[in-house]
């Protein structure tokens, strides 16, 4: 087990290095931050001076090397856009993104799971058909469109919910949370719903198809034959067995939610890491982009690792397998 985790961690470092290297090669094409920093009236001499100060005149690989050496020491440099430490900027934005992502994932589970079960059990019901059609919309409509539609209806026409921002936040240590204020909750609704719609549809469809599969298996037929209550069959036996793949997919999706919160964050001006990244791209703010990409790849690797470990916890067959192979080492 320990060897397994260690091996995965070493792979993780490899992945992050590769991401950082690719990022640095790409940075050569995002343009020159100095022009934006100095405004277009600056003289060429001023520009050269600043470029040298920032180390932008050095070859890519030298820049990359400096980045790695500093990053290992936890120093990601200063944001070119705001002159602030990148690590501080990211730490300030992380809570917003995580709260939004977790809220969206929870909505996906809480709404998607029961609906999935329902549509599987009432396969031909009108409501089921309607829900499936809705889920198709959820999968195919782009997030920004959903977001803008929600804003139009709930902020502009009805005036019920705010259209942008995170509302009032309270600081607990370095973590700023919007979950302790009424305004924070109000501001969370629209972006969380927007971000979750795709996931709701996904969970719904996944649960439905898994459930249909399980309901066809012999042990369910056997349980029916034994005369167990429908409730016990559906929720005690069928649903439990459906959950394994759902957990896996949701775990993997969480990484996706965090990374792709970018669009939702931009639409709702949600002050998270995604918004920070978009602004960094437009400014060619290399230190912020590099740190963000490394962090996201780290989160992905971490989630993959946890999902792998979850497999062992959930599926006893794998545990046996690992025990054997572990023994052979």
């Amino acid at each position, binding site marked *: 087990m320990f060897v397994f985790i260690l091996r995965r961690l070493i792979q993780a470092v490899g992945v992050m290095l590769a991401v950082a290297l690719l990022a640095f090669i790409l940075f050569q094409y995002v343009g020159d*931050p100095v022009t934006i920093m100095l405004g277009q*009236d600056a003289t060429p001499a001023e520009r050269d001076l600043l470029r040298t100060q920032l180390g932008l005149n050095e070859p890519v690989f030298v820049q990359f090397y400096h980045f790695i050496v500093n990053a290992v020491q936890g120093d990601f440099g200063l944001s070119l856009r705001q002159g602030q430490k990148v690590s501080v900027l990211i730490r300030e934005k992380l809570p917003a993104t995580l709260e939004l992502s977790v809220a969206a994932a929870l909505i996906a589970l809480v709404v998607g799971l029961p609906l999935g079960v329902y549509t599987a059990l009432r396969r031909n019901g009108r409501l089921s058909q309607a829900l499936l059609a809705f889920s198709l919309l959820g999968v195919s409509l782009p997030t920004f469109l959903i977001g803008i539609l929600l804003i139009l209806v709930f902020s502009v026409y009805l005036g019920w919910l*705010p*259209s*942008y921002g995170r509302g009032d936040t309270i600081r607990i240590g370095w973590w700023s949370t919007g979950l302790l204020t009424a305004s924070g909750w109000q501001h969370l609704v629209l972006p969380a719903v927007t971000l979750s719609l795709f996931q709701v549809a996904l969970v719904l469809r996944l649960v439905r198809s898994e459930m249909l599969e399980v309901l066809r298996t012999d042990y369910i037929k056997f349980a029916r034959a034994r005369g167990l209550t429908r409730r016990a069959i559906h929720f005690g036996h069928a649903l439990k067995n459906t959950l394994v793949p759902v957990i896996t997919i949701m775990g993997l999706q969480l990484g996706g939610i965090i990374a792709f919160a970018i669009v939702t964050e931009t639409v709702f001006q949600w002050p998270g890491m995604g918004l920070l990244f978009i602004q960094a791209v437009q400014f060619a703010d290399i230190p912020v982009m590099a740190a963000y990409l490394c962090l996201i790849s780290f989160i992905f690797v971490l989630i993959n690792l946890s999902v792998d470990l979850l497999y062992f916890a959930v599926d006893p067959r794998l545990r046996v397998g690992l025990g054997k192979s572990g023994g052979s080492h």
Partner: protein
Amino acid sequence: MRRTLIAVAVSASMLFPTLGLAKTFKWASQGDILTLDPHSQNEGLNIAANLWVYDPLVRYNEKFEVSPALATSWEQINPSLWRFKLREGVKFHDGTPFTAEDVVFSIKRAMAPSSQFKSYTAGIKDVKALDPLTVEIATDGPNPVLLRQLPVLGMMSKAWSEKNGTTAPQDFNKKEESYSARNAMGTGPYKLKSREVDIKTVYEENTDWWGKPTKTGNVTEIIYTPIKQNATRTAALLSGEIDFVLDPAAQDLDRLRQQVKVIDGNEYRTIYLGLDVNSPELKYSNIKGKNPLADVRVREALYRAIDIEAIKKSVMRGLSLPTGTMIAPQVNGYTKELGQRVPYDVEKAKALLKEAGYDNNFEVTLDCPNNRYINDEAICQAIVSMWAKVGVKAKLNAMPRATFFPKVGNNDTSIYLFGWGVPTYDAYYSLEALIHSKGEGANGSFNYGNYSNPQVDKLIDTIKTETDDAKRTAMIHEALALFAKDFGAIPLHDQVIPWAMKKNVTVLHRADNRPVVEWIKID
């Protein structure tokens, strides 16, 4: 019970007499204020916001005339020495008095190597305090635009800066964030209350401000929120969450005009096409061994082939002021005659090209930014198709500004779309950078087409130091007219920048795109 409530309310309102009059001004634009340091990041919004906290020595009044701010009067001792009398009794937000030492400190800070405001201190040689309320500024040679450079330079407290280790603007060599990037303390009409980067910045009124008795606006609190998405910004204004949007999206304007309020005004920025008139051979063309753009007939043909009214109507949706010169109407040196365009004439353009030997055989690349000026790429697309009608085959090369500016900055272009604003409101700023031959200092620093005319250069050099206003203005007219006769560049239009706001908000539009909050009234 009720009576006690009333009593509490009454006594509370006596404790806070302004409570009933509190007017909060919530507004948004695309990006955040970059830094609170008044001498870092030379960018429009940034300058506007920092001038609420930091007063300059002189400022523009509602009619765009230079008027007193922290300096109450000034005189020219000799052509290169100015003496400023400072306002008495001005206090910083922390209660300390404002003195001549602070002025010396601030201007020198803006001249520091890490300052990005050096273009506003250009020509300043030295600053000296004569007594606590008198300052002398020495310039290297006569500098007729000094007073127009100063309205952007905010005055900081020397003691406060020293105490917080921020005596120089942000230096990217040091790995530490500068204290002044997130903290601000000046003498201005508003005090910084809180700052959350990229989320919101809050200012409250400075009730002890020296200009309070004559202040025309009634805003007591400013809340600035960046909202990146155009649709979200519009929605926030329509739903009443914010009072004012600095940069409403073009496609939303009709709706905003109906439901809220939009005011239009031109920016002091002129959009034009720069031409490589000097290379022996164009870098991006099919014509080898010679430069078609060196021929004034070709330049005139390209100019005449552009139907600027069509661009105004279909690309700019009516929001542009076509122009025939390189400066906007607000800029000193502009005249109606100069602003008159050479007429659009396809036949004449064709004839000129034929005469010059380029009948349907000239191909060239047009470099264009796609996220800098209003509809920049669409303007270029329109021009490409207009040139095609006179037989010039232009290839559009559109790119983001972070790629575009370094490219044209290396003169790596044949024709390029450019925009030039004039923060000093004086034509010299444009003449020096865009029209003067490349030379020392700022001379020709943005003359990427290498236009050069010794007669014009001589005029510009005289304009730089001429202190007789009438003579100087006449020379500006002459220089601009010569440049227009040479077709040294193809001026297109001045950008119109609409501001959108709730119906109860009254704002004065400014060509520098900076809302002055002490003038804003909310009913």
